[in-house]
């Protein structure tokens, strides 16, 4: 689909920070793209019926392995990233293989993976001598006299971060498209609907699921690395545990996890909603913004289970189809 609108949109997005954007809008844009990348990673497996509540563990591994390596062993993030990805891959396979081998699906899969994300959070808290526990940890700064350090993967310029994360986001969409067009996706969709039937026509269910899980987990882990290096602060609650795991699921669902830009729309929507509520209502009434946010999530799942973009596409499709149906004699 050679759509010129898409390229114009991308070019505008890429050029936006150059047009003298303030620091705060730029920060919001960066965070949106960062979460969009993570939500896209989640949705790659979520859309196939593998609803994981364990992605908080992968995000936490990415963030903490790199920061711990740098702070305690002087390990450059360039070496820390492969290490974090290797750890993520091992954990994802350790959890995924038995799950898929023993056909743990649905509620059970969600709850087993939930245990994983809680284990990650608790281990981070329990290793408080190294990780700083619930107080969180800041990577040892390399920004003292320079504007950035390539070795430490720390940059004070938001512009650099914007282009790094923009590139990752594009890469995430590319991976989504590759998975979407692969035979594996068709097979996995068949599996998510009728597992026994899919197996009966010779599909290796466990291997296909494992592949998708691995891709999804690695993307999430990378997201964790980016989050830690950009924010220069991580704490166990924001990168692991049940809260962030649910946030990923909701982001993807709110936007629509069955369409490519759905998770991105979800990230933009949830982030902007939180910011608008916060600005409109102020800090004085603590909790009002998140209360409305929670309420909207509930309403979303009840009334718009396909998400914003999914619902919008349905409306467009119906509009396009309506005239022809009216013209045809029935």
């Amino acid at each position, binding site marked *: 689909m050679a759509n010129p609108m898409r390229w114009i949109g991308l070019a505008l997005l890429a050029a936006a920070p150059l047009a003298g954007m303030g620091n705060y809008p730029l920060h919001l844009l960066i965070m949106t793209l960062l979460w969009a990348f993570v939500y896209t990673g989640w949705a790659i497996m979520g859309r196939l*019926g593998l609803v994981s509540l364990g992605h908080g563990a992968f995000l936490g591994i990415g963030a903490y392995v790199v920061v711990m390596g740098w702070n305690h062993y002087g390990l450059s993030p360039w070496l820390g990233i492969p290490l974090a990805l290797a750890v993520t891959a091992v954990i994802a396979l350790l959890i995924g293989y038995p799950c898929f081998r023993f056909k743990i699906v649905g509620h059970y899969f969600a709850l*087993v993976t939930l245990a994983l994300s809680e284990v990650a959070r608790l281990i981070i808290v329990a290793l408080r001598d190294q990780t700083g526990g619930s107080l969180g940890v800041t990577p040892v700064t390399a920004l003292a006299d320079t504007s950035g350090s390539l070795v430490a993967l720390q940059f004070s310029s938001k512009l650099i971060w914007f282009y790094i994360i923009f590139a990752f986001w594009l890469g995430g969409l590319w991976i989504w498209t590759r998975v979407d067009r692969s035979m594996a996706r068709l097979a996995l969709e068949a599996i998510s609907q009728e597992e026994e039937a899919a197996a009966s026509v010779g599909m290796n269910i466990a291997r296909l699921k494992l592949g998708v899980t691995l891709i999804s987990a690695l993307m999430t882990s990378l997201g964790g690395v980016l989050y830690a290096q950009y924010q220069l602060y991580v704490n166990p609650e924001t990168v692991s545990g049940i809260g962030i795991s649910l946030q990923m699921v909701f982001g993807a669902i709110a936007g629509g996890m069955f369409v490519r830009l759905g998770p991105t729309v979800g990230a933009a929507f949830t982030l902007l909603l939180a910011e608008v509520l916060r600005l409109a209502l102020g800090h004085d009434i603590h909790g009002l913004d998140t*209360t409305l946010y929670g309420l909207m999530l509930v309403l979303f799942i009840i009334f718009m289970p396909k998400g914003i973009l999914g619902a919008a596409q349905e409306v467009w499709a119906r509009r396009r189809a309506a005239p022809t149906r009216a013209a045809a004699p029935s």
Partner: protein
Amino acid sequence: MEFFDVFLLEAVINGLLLGGVLALLALGLNLIFGVIDVVWICYAELVMIGMYAVYYFHNVFGWPLWLAMLVAILAVAVLGAALHQFVIRPVLAAEPINQLLVTGGVLFFLQAAATLAFGVEFRNIGVSLPAMQAGGMYLSLARLIAFLVALGGMVGVYLFLTRTFVGTAIRAISQDRAIMPLMGVNANRIFVITSALGGGLAGLAACLLVLQYDIHPAIGLTFGPITFMICVLGGLGNMLGGFIAAFIFAQFISVGGYILHIEWGYVFAFLFFIAMMFWRPQGLLGGK
């Protein structure tokens, strides 16, 4: 060496007492899952609301503690029924995972609403029960009461399910959701009653926990995940399995926490859970 053993024994007994409350939490969740086939991710948040209710009725309004607790249990029961009627019922026909997630939205909502209404400060009802000393061990009276009341509550639920007409209808519908409406049972009425009962059990658990823990909006996250693990380990919907699993988990937390640190107790409990899922995915007592 003898010194060590006494403390270990203390940890084991405390674990046993903790197991009672965990079993009560698991019972409510299992009841709802067994009958309605929905996992309330926000179950522990109902407990949190119940704890705040006790605090407000007792400490702010100045009601006697027994009355505050009774009204709190009723309030959470109503909340449970409302949760079913307004949140679960519209998605009963949707994908199962949406039912799980919609209660996740309720989790966020209740947590934030509690922050909004009550603030983030830690509250305490200020009722401190003495510790009992027996054979060189210190045992918390609050925990002993919680253990006994939890057991009593479970016996009560068992009698309700086996000796009353509504209880029989609940068990029947949990065995075959499709056939009961044909027999003239109003399925939604049974679902609402079950949800109220599940809520009431959350309220009862709240009354027991409020004696031991400070109240804050995120307290649900302390009990929530462990309750799901217990239910799954016991076999979702299997009440006896949940009962046994609660005591196993409590020992991990108590003894593991005694030997290392409380977080490690939880870590071991969760790792044990993950390992068990691969060995017996259907749960401890689940059939094939």
